[in-house]
């Protein structure tokens, strides 16, 4: 029985001002509709240009659950193609990264395609003479996605040909990507190694919401961050011993509520937002020798201070990534099923900056976001307990009410108390908008 298919009223009814229905997280049909509508109408992160630096370099990935190839075409531009042979559907590439030269060649019957997807050749083509192949969809080759935008090295795509414009969709939220890239004295990032890949048996949105959930660190992470602080205090050490880098990374998770309240949350239209408007858990890291001087040389002192003075914590780009400007990390929350999400955590090198910055970034990634991370373990535990708990009929609604104000207007940029759940509500507002945008019926 279909409860939701293309019924915009039923979808809209799942989101109330201060609560959302559990089917948003557990219903397979809602999930299918997300893939069909939400992930097709929005601009979704695909990859970073440094993952495909040379012509013919490609990666395979997914937009929502759609398999795609991001490839650098012979003209030097990045293309995003559906990873599906127009002949019989075979995936053209399955390795996570590689170089295909000037063209892709399907391994099944050797149809070949230029790196912009256009059909190049079919063996024994005379077999299609007078069959009407020229009028078929297949003759067009590998289908490109609807639209692609490379913003300062970050490649986004929209599956649908029609839809919101890139700049309209992201607006001023792009300032977080800007800040991350500007932290390189050369204004350039490079991916550093493969991502962590962490499988979560929960809905993808739980992860996205968690990025601006500032009331959980001191609770869920007490066992790692709290124990770290205790151990450090108990440790015999000479007076004035500098905290090791690992302590600097992990200890701020135990910061008290006021710290998170005062850090602030900013929301932008279309579901984007960030924690850490005024300060964040990344504010008090030790200076890395030589870095500030490099920044001053590149940008001048005033601008260098402005760039480094911005310490945004987590920026959510709706629908499914989070970036951390101060430590050059990006986490991609890939939906697999209603109850399954693959999290890929990437790190980037600030080109022209000291290696020690990258060392801290790699450490952060490992300590906080790895499947072997003491911090990650407790987050995953909470998501999976929630995914199971939502099947309880004790209550069908999930509460997102903290610091709710009647008549919230998500089309306006707002800065609020850092413990508000406004950003979660902002995401659900955008969720409804992009879910129903292509459903027909009256808004």
């Amino acid at each position, binding site marked *: 029985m279909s409860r939701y298919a293309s019924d915009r009223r039923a979808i809209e009814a799942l989101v109330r001002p201060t609560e959302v229905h559990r089917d948003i997280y557990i219903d397979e049909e809602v999930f299918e509709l997300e893939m069909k509508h939400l992930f097709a109408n929005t601009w979704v992160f695909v990859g970073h240009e440094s993952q495909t630096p040379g012509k013919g370099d490609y990666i395979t990935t997914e937009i929502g659950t759609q398999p795609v190839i991001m490839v650098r075409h012979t003209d030097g531009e990045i293309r995003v193609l559906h990873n599906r042979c127009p002949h019989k559907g075979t995936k053209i590439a399955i390795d*996570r990264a590689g170089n295909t030269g000037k063209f892709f060649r399907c391994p099944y019957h050797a149809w070949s395609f230029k790196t912009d997807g256009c059909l190049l050749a079919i063996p024994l083509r005379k077999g299609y003479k007078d069959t009407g192949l020229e009028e078929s969809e297949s003759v067009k080759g590998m289908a490109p996605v609807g639209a692609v935008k490379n913003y300062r090295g970050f490649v986004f795509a929209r599956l649908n040909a029609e839809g919101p414009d890139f700049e309209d969709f992201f607006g001023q939220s792009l300032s977080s990507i800007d800040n991350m890239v500007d932290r390189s004295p050369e204004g350039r990032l490079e991916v*550093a*190694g*493969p*991502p*962590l*890949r*962490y*499988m*979560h*048996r929960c809905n993808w949105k739980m992860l996205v919401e968690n990025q601006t959930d500032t009331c959980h660190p001191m609770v*869920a992470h*007490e*066992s*790692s961050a*709290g*124990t*770290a602080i*205790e*151990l*450090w205090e108990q*440790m015999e050490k000479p007076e004035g011993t500098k905290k*090791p880098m*690992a*302590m600097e990374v992990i200890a701020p998770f135990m910061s008290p509520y006021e710290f998170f309240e005062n850090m602030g949350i900013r929301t932008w239209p279309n579901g984007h937002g960030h924690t850490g408007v005024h300060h964040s858990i990344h504010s008090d890291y030790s200076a890395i020798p030589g870095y500030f001087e490099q920044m001053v040389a590149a940008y001048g002192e005033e601008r260098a201070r402005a760039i480094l003075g911005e310490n945004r914590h987590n920026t959510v780009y709706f629908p499914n990534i989070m970036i951390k400007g101060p430590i050059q990390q990006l986490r991609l929350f890939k939906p697999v099923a209603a109850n399954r999400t*693959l999290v890929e*955590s990437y*790190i980037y*090198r600030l080109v022209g900056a000291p*290696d020690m910055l*990258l*060392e801290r970034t*790699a*450490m952060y*990634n*490992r*300590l906080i976001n*790895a*499947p*072997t991370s*003491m911090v*990650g*373990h*407790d987050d*995953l*535990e*909470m998501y999976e307990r929630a995914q199971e708990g939502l099947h309880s009929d004790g209550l069908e609604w999930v509460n997102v009410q903290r610091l709710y104000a009647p008549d919230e207007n998500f089309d306006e940029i707002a800065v609020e108390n850092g413990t508000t759940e406004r950003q979660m509500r902002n995401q659900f507002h955008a969720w409804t908008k992009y879910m129903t945008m292509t459903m027909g019926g009256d808004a």
Partner: protein
Amino acid sequence: MAFPTRDDLIDFVYEEARMLDDGRFDEWLDLWTPDSFYWMPLDYNQQDDRHVTSLLHEDAFMRKLRIERFKGERTFSQKPKTRCHHVLQRPFIDHRDDEKGEYTTHTSFHYVETRLDDQILLAATARHELKLIDGRLKITHKRVDLLNSDAAFGNIQMFL
């Protein structure tokens, strides 16, 4: 122990795994030198342990933290606790230098971790760098390579 025999080295590796399986974590922590590292790379053949991501790269402080966390009252992912089980192939002695008291072993093993109804099986290789200090073997470095290190994992909570 004058110089460790082949059996001494092999026994050490087996005993280390047994401590983890038995949950004798404090004894296990004591097997390491103060400046030693436990390293689990993310990528097959990874050489750099600092400038790309690893699964684990833990010094003495981080190892102790992980062990203390296991014991904690509010360690939610350890309520109930994880248990583990190693099956080792006989270690190879890849290198021995009695003059310096330095030894390297190479051990293939299967590792099972369980909690509630979940159980995972991992295939891995451990490379132990050992040093004879005051007549006792100590670990200066342990590298664990998962056969499928690039796969997507759920939680892996214990030391392998």
